């Protein structure tokens, strides 16, 4: 853990922790980018962990999956296309809230 670590830690409301690649998270989620790269250099940027107290762990897991999915899709050759990221209907509303907050 540190400012230059490859992974960042996302902490859900129920204190479960998720590690995602910093590069992916910053690229996909504008909110995470702002937190980590913001000019204010808040403490999240220092310790590379973000507490997302408004997102529960099941939802945050889906978000983390999406971050990985997007990273994968971005590596595809031009012309190739990936299937849409699957979301279960019962998760949709929670994911929508989280995605809106994280701007991804």
């Amino acid at each position: 853990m540190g400012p230059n670590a490859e992974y960042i830690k996302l902490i859900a409301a129920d204190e479960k922790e998720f590690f995602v690649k910093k590069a992916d998270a910053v690229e996909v989620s504008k909110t995470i980018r702002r937190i980590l790269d913001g000019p204010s250099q808040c403490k999240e940027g220092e310790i590379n962990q973000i507490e997302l107290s408004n997102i529960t762990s099941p939802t945050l897991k889906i978000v983390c999956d999406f971050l990985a999915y997007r990273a994968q899709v971005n590596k595809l050759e031009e012309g190739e296309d990936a299937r849409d990221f699957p979301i279960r209907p019962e998760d949709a509303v929670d994911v929508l809230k989280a995605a809106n907050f994280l701007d991804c």
Partner: protein
Amino acid sequence: MHLHFERNLNAKCDCSILSLTWMGKVPDELPEDEGWKLSRTNYYQEGWLAAGNVRGIVGVTFTTSHWRKNSEFPLRTNYNLRGHRSEIILVKWNEPYQKLASCDSSGIIFVWIKYDGRWSIELINDRNTPVTHFSWSHDGRMALICYQDGFVLVGSVAGQRYWSSMLSLESTITCGLWTPDDQQVYFGTTSGRLIVMDVHGAMVSQIQLCQDFGPIVSMAWSCEKFKMEENESDTTSPYHNRGFVLAVCFKNGNILLMKSFDDVSPIQLQTGLLGVCIEWSNSRQLLAVAGTKASTVPSDSQTNVLQFYSDNGVLIHSTAIPYRQSNVTALTWGHNDKRLFIATGCQMHIAWVSTRIASLQMLSGLKTHMQLKSESQVPALPLPPRIRVFLSNLFAQTIRVSECYLPEINQMRQFVSRPPSKNFRLYCTMIRHDEDTNLTAGTCYTLYLEFLGGLVPLLKGKRTSKIKPEFVIFDPQVEETELLDVTKLRLNDVSPNGRLTSDSSDSDMDDGCASPRVQMRQRRCRRAHEKRDLVEIDDLTYVDILPEYARLVQVTSNIWGTKFKVHGLAKSLPENLGHITYKTSLLHLQPRQMTLVMTELGDDVVLGPDPNFNPHLFSEDEDEAASEVDQRSLPLTDLALPIAPMTPRPAGESRRLQQQSSRSSRPSTKATENSASLQRAPSSLPPLCGGEPQTPKHTVAPREDLPSEPSTSMRVKSSIKVASQLDEAKEQSRTKRREKQACSHKQAVSSLCKEEEAAAAAAVAAGAVTAPGRGPTVVNPSTYSILLDPMVRSCSVGYLDLVDLTLNSHGPLGDPADAPPKRLVLVHKKEQPKPKLSNCGKSKSFDSSEIFPSAERKKQARGNANMTFQKSQVTRKPVQKKEVEQTENKDLKAEDHVFVNQNDGLASSATEHNNHTSRLPHSSPASPALGKKKRNQSPLRSFALDCRRHLLNSPLLSRRVWKNRNTNESSDDEVACPNEEVINGRNFRDLETFQKAQLRQKLRKGKNDPPSVPAAARHREFVMHNKAPMWNENSQVYQLDFGGRVTQESAKNFQIEFRGKQVMQFGRIDGNAYTLDFQYPFSALQAFAVALANVTQRLK
């Protein structure tokens, strides 16, 4: 890339769509010199989708990619273009020239052009040979037509033939297209050959493509459909086609991507689909391919698949189209590649396409959206507002027409029982089917909303009596469970016919010759089947077979079929919806005259039974009708009157006076007589305003009366001005000069002997008097021309005689609609306001002379007139009370200025115009200046108007007065026009107006539903008449302009006017099909009821 299908199951036609084409909507403003400067991102947010279907109708429907719900709509969002007599195989926009080409299976090509808000056929091409393909060149200037017999033709967009050639081939040309630079044309044949010719018709090459692929079905270049930017067309470069890819689609589903016709190594795509439709996106990156998955296992449902390929042949995306009942029949891109329209039979699918990868927000939002049944559930979700907005936006419909055009299925009842919102018009078709179903006997009529080239059923009506032309209209909305039952019931009835659902096009092949009855049955069967399928998918679709459970409205009639009442049966409707009275002439030599009294339906309508309304009570004699109703309603009125009204004039006296005043040529110099003539009106009003049968006196020979009516209005108005002006003592000193001017003016006019003209002249002068005091700089040049417009329309007060009269009076005086010369005058006027001002001192004599318009004949001037004026003041006072004299006439500014302008040098023609314009001084909300003034109107004015109205209830005048009232009550109201009267139970400004209204009601004969009954007083009634047709000498027919919506002559065709604007039209388009267009104040129910009453044969 990301794609999802819009949830819009109502985006469907009632028959198979065979071709689609989309074009961006250009702004409504006139193009600049070199045409519209289009930016694809901006202008392509809105567009027009054209759809050709098997019934030979081209639908042109507005589409939008705006997320905003309240974005502006064009006034008309759907056109169903009729003209073809067989199924339409191809529709193609020509975007640079804003034209539409449509080809039918018989080989007839129409080129449509939109002009003045209507689409009409500009060119017809018919070679008596079926057309296989048609395409516009990319600059829009040329068209290429391929015929089945090998004949190919290149012509200009204007219809001129450039060259044609008969290609002797053993195979048929199936498609032809232009190269991106428009220098060559390519043809594909059934034998898989590609034929290349240059732009002048010289053969360039013939290439046999893969022989085992079979016939070529279509071809497409990966260039933009049209070159909208001029500088793009660098036609000199021989390599211009470089970079574009030609997709050649074969019948077996294989596609070749070729860089040019001699590409030796084309990319081969095996789509695995049949019945493939292809189109490149404008960005030339994506080839959309839609077809049906070739399945080895025979099953009754197919899978329709949509695929996207890049220009180097990579399959980018593939998705199933969520509809299995029919093959893909057409496909087109729209909205700058943001939308893809796909037709599968009658169903339209709209895909939202994005080349970017969907965000998690979008994906989860869509998932949420899919779980919601309707947008109304969005606010209930535990989400922050911004996410709710986002979710709501996902409900946005591309084919949105307008909110008020297409009803939600669960709001059908509400939709049909409310008028469309202001200015929106519903375009409908009504079809008679004699043998409707085996369930019911009796002639049925169905009202359909025209949409997407098809018809959406709205209402069903059935004749209930064999003797009398009486109908019931059924409730289109039933509870969901009932709906399913009904559907199943019907399905059982139809299934023995054994028609299959999927391939609906075959049954309509013979559309042109099959009897309409058969067609109807076929449609019904097909619809029933489709209905079943749809019900399985989603019950949010329209009930294609309207239920006959609940009765909503009853149309009752007298035995002769000349009087009808529209009777609301449901609790949600007022009992009295209106009534219709026909006046047919002997032997039907004259056009029908009809009078409609319609109850305004709105959310504030008081429901429940109306004690005065008896749907079965009809007076048998037209002349007696008024008095009979009068007797019925008068006592009630009396009971309801809380305040003793002023004594009405005895009817006998009024009538006598009316006769006097109606002798138009008679010089009326006595004040008493004149003032009496002002009061005659109440007696003459009832037959017209009450909506009961016209008395013959008014309908048959109104010519006698009419001249005096406008003049009466002139007189009173001017009198009011006089009164106010008199209060300005300073102006008295200028009286003499003003007088002189007035006299000289009148002499100029005196060649026109009609009283009304003289009255108009007086009004002109009066305007001149009052206007300069406020400074003439306020004049709005646009005012005048706007005012003239309703003037022309005012010809159509509903009586032929009147039309003749007004036309005749227009004739010798030049074209009344010519505003420019007057505008010049206007400028001139502005330059010298001073002299005018000095002239404008109040002149008693002049004012009196306007009260006695024929005074100028005597050429006697001031003294006499002066005296008469005084008299008229005296006589008026008791009736109008003192306020009249204090009435400010500032609110009359606008019209006054108009008068000034005309007065200044336009002599007689101007005065003639005045006569008409003055009826409609406030009818032009289009002019901002006018609108502002209207808002400043004082209660005093309303009172004054009311007085006038009360005193001068002649048919013409009342209309005018109502219009003024209207502007008082709501300045934002739509165009206020003269052609109606209103009965309004509320909105009284003060006690006086209330009293007047009460009195008016009491005096009104033939009023069926007295608003003075408090419970029933909450809604307004409008009296309307049909527009009198013009007699065309050349063709010996009566004519009306139906805007291309009516194709057959019929005595039943009619138009209804309201406030000078045509608000309803009905006309025959086929043996048993009619178009019915209507807008406020008609609700669909009322319009349908009027139409039903109108289609019946009258005995009398």
